[in-house]
């Protein structure tokens, strides 16, 4: 046997870094197309009349949401797990050929599933449930991918050297369990072909739930997809990467534990805020609102913990673009978790629901928090997995400002558009006749839709810079020694 020193093995992490970037580009490119379609309807015919079926807004919208959620974000979660997991448990994937093989299998199956999703969504095959559009055969594949990931999490934990599970690991476990539970329950469906004895296509299905129950399960799922996809795993990332990159241990470990349980406890009950003024029981709506407001506490608990971690080290924010990304991410996290509860108050929701303000809220959360944090994670990981310096620091800085401007244009335009829309829909004269017709709002909103599209385009350009920077890091970055990788990431000019 050769006697090489034990090292972490990032093979699977690298594979998922790759899909994070590729699917990020796909998802956001489609997002930008959608944004331009809303401002300029001609864009629906992007590739001509003949292909309009595949390029229209309704066909592309689920492709956008699913590519950014299940493609980009979930890949980012897997990539960072296969990096952080080994490190905080102090055990290498190389020590377990079985876990390594399962990790690669998970990746392969994941890619196959993504391909099936893209094809089926473009073909218009969907269950029509938001964020749960996939038909049952794809759902089964997704469950297998997820179970393989779970085996890996618990497998690594089983052979760990570090006795205590670092707070990030808790968050990853919660992500795994939370999504498993939500996904299974919400996607329960009856395959119509088999149930009816051969009517229709074999891959079609109808939900097991109906009416109000369906709405309830759907938004219990939808809201917690935000919780366990856009919040919990991203918090896992920042709890590791910010302390590591800045060389400062997390400000208060106790607060991190407390916010963890607080988040778990409160999030699951807040989904009712998506169904205010609908047919679900009144007390459920009220509780949804109340829990949404309470949710500020555990959310801010984590975010403030991150900001305090930088105590006495604020000069790092100025000098390191990587820290900038993370601090901006946690600031946007605070911002969207303040905005959300405000929108969950019934009287505010009466104006905000169905308007662009919600879309604005979604994107200050995902663009400012989720994507920023995932990009920061990959920037931190790149020098360590490729053993090379980050290619260009100045490009990172430029990217940071371009994307920050993009997010600001996106959410400010959507705020104005949303509130204008909400007010115009409600306006009426003294006899109760509506003051405006729908097309009046469309005309008024046009400039804001254009601004949103430009903001989105800027953000996409920034994402291309990110992809290019990582590619260059991988191929031509200066090679670095282990001792340069202790805390702050090495960056070239």
């Amino acid at each position, binding site marked *: 046997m050769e006697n090489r020193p034990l090292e972490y093995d990032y093979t699977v992490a690298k594979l998922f870094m790759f899909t994070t970037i590729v699917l990020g580009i796909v998802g956001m490119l489609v997002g930008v197309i959608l944004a331009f379609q809303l401002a300029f309807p001609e864009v629906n015919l992007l590739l001509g009349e003949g292909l309009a079926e595949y390029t229209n807004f309704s066909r592309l919208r689920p492709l956008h949401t699913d590519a950014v959620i299940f493609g980009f974000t979930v890949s980012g979660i897997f990539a960072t797990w296969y990096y952080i997991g080994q490190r905080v448990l102090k055990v290498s994937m190389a020590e377990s050929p079985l876990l390594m093989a399962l990790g690669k299998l998970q990746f392969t199956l994941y890619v196959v599933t993504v391909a099936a999703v893209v094809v089926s969504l473009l073909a218009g095959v969907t269950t029509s449930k938001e964020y749960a559009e996939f038909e049952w055969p794809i759902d089964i594949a997704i469950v297998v991918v997820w179970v393989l990931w779970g085996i890996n999490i618990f497998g690594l934990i089983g052979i760990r050297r570090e006795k205590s599970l670092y707070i990030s690991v808790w968050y990853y476990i919660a992500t795994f369990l939370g999504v498993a539970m939500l996904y299974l329950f919400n996607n329960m469906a009856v395959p119509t072909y088999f149930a009816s004895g051969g009517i229709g296509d074999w891959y079609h299905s109808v939900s097991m739930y109906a009416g109000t129950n369906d709405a309830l399960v759907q938004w219990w799922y939808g809201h917690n997809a935000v919780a366990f996809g856009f919040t919990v795993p991203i918090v896992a990332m920042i709890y590791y990467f910010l302390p590591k990159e800045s060389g400062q241990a997390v400000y208060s470990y106790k607060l991190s534990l407390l916010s963890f*349980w607080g988040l778990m406890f409160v999030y699951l009950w807040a989904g009712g805020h998506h169904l205010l003024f609908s047919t679900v029981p009144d007390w459920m709506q009220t509780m949804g609102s109340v829990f949404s407001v309470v949710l500020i506490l555990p959310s801010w608990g984590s975010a403030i913990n991150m900001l305090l971690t930088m105590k006495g080290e604020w000069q790092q924010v100025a000098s390191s673009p990587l820290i900038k990304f993370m601090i901006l991410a946690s600031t946007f996290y605070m911002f969207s978790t303040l905005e959300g509860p405000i929108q969950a108050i019934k009287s505010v929701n009466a104006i905000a629901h169905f308007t662009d303000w919600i879309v604005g809220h979604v994107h200050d959360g995902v663009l400012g928090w989720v994507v920023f944090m995932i990009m920061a994670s990959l920037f931190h990981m790149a020098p360590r997995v490729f053993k090379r310096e980050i290619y260009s620091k100045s490009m990172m800085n430029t990217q940071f400002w371009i994307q920050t401007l993009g997010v600001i244009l996106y959410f400010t335009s959507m705020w104005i558009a949303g509130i204008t829309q909400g007010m115009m829909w409600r306006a009426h004269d003294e006899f109760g006749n509506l003051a405006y017709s729908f097309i009046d709002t469309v005309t008024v909103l046009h400039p804001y839709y254009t601004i949103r599209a430009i903001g989105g385009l800027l953000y996409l350009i920034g994402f291309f810079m990110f992809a290019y920077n990582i590619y260059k890091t991988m191929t031509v970055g200066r090679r670095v020694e282990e001792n340069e990788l202790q805390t702050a990431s090495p960056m070239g000019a």
Partner: protein
Amino acid sequence: MDIAELQAYGYFFLTAFLVFVLYGYIYHLYSSERKGKRDYEKYGNIALNDEVTDKPVEEISKKDDETLKKEA
């Protein structure tokens, strides 16, 4: 009382119970640290000293723990 009302009461009391548990947990965290049973803050170092060759903040096996204590 119909089922919806029952659910609402159930929901309320479950919530109250969980709030109680959560506050209990806060108390547990701070009191076990005050009594010196556990130092939670040291776990923050797990992220900082995370090379595979670094010494774990807390060793996994009991035996190692004891040898550590003897060394100290």
